[in-house]
């Protein structure tokens, strides 16, 4: 029971965190209702996609564990990472007012563009881990019988409740900190998740390249570890493992991972820094 609770919590908390942040932010906008609708449509699509992917994994397992699926998952992670950054940029530009915006027209325009981003991001956030959760639940559901199955189901539901509580904690924190601080924190969380997604996508691609016949330099770039900090902070247990999942920490990063990670923060830093409330270009 503990096991299913923990797994469901771990798999769903990231998606719920993203959705919670986006929902909190969208509901503060002038076009809040429309944006929130986009968001929930994305969640619904994400759940459907999870189910579809899970069915594929379970019934076309050979194909779904092969190389094509690795590239597909890497692409999902990279697109999700890009959307995280885009969303933070969008929040950054439009989140500062936090009051009803009188420029209805501009707002509507914004809602349509941003809405699509919200929808896609919610969909990817849900479906990435969602499909794994469905596979896990189905697998156990098909194997267990009687009271064991009951305990398992209780555990799974408790995992979801635990995730909801985590989310409530996040929302509750708004009482104690200002909106400005809340959104600064949210942006940081989304950007870190973006980095984690980028690193995981990069490593998937690296793993595929290692299996191919490519020049030796490629192997050393994507393969060899530049250093080993696992004695200080191991990425397979405890805090290091948490940071690996939420910020892309690696104790033994390859050259490629380091390049991509550094490039990410340089690009994100450079892109977000000069934007102030006054000299905004039109949202593109």
């Amino acid at each position, binding site marked *: 029971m503990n*096991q299913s609770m*923990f*797994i469901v919590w771990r798999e769903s908390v990231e998606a719920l965190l993203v959705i919670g942040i986006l929902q909190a932010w969208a509901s503060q906008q002038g076009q809040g209702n429309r944006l929130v609708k986009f968001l929930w449509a994305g969640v619904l699509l994400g759940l459907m996609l999870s189910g579809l992917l899970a069915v594929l*994994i*379970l*019934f076309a*397992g*050979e194909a*779904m*564990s*092969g190389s094509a699926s690795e590239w597909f998952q890497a692409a999902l992670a990279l697109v999700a990472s890009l959307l995280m950054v885009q969303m933070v940029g969008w929040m950054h530009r439009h989140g500062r007012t936090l009051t009803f915006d009188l420029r209805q027209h501009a707002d509507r325009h914004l809602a349509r563009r941003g809405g699509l981003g919200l929808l896609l991001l919610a969909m990817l956030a849900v479906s990435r881990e969602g499909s*794994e959760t469905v*596979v*896990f639940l*189905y*697998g*156990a559901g*098909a*194997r267990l019988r009687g009271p064991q199955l009951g305990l398992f189901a209780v555990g799974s539901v408790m995992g979801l409740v635990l995730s909801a509580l985590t989310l409530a904690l996040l929302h509750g924190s708004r009482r104690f900190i200002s909106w400005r601080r809340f959104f600064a924190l949210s942006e940081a969380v989304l950007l870190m998740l973006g980095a984690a997604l*980028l690193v*995981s996508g*990069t*490593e*998937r*691609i*690296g*793993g*595929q*390249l*290692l*299996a*191919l*016949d*490519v*020049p030796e330099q*490629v*192997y050393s*770039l*994507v*393969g*060899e*570890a530049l250093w*080993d900090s*696992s004695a200080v902070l*191991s*990425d*397979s247990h405890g805090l290091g*493992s948490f940071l*690996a999942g939420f910020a892309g920490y*690696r*104790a*033994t990063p*390859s050259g*490629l991972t380091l*390049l*991509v990670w550094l*490039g*990410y923060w*340089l*690009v994100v830093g450079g892109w977000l820094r000069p934007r102030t409330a006054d000299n905004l270009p039109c949202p593109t």
Partner: protein
Amino acid sequence: MKRLPLACLMLAGAVAPITARAELPTYELILRDGHFTPAVLEVPAGQRFKIVLKNNGQGPAEFESTPLRVEKVLSPGVTTFVVIHPLSPGHYPFFDEFNPQLPEGGILAK
């Protein structure tokens, strides 16, 4: 900027013949509902190698290891493989994410 090295690599990957090297040392690892056979895999350090993963269990498995840079879901009966980068000597843990309460397995690079 962040995409540039990636693009180069993907180009390199596309240009090179898409075949796995035959001489890659290969090891077999059986997953059975969270248990690994063998529990510890000994490999030479400093060399790429391939692990053939077989899920002989009744339920699905998720073979995962951050230091080995692998995360793979296997439904029951599935056989697949991963290629691991050259390791420096040491112990690298892996586990079945769907059975986290069971003891980890590991790779011992010598």
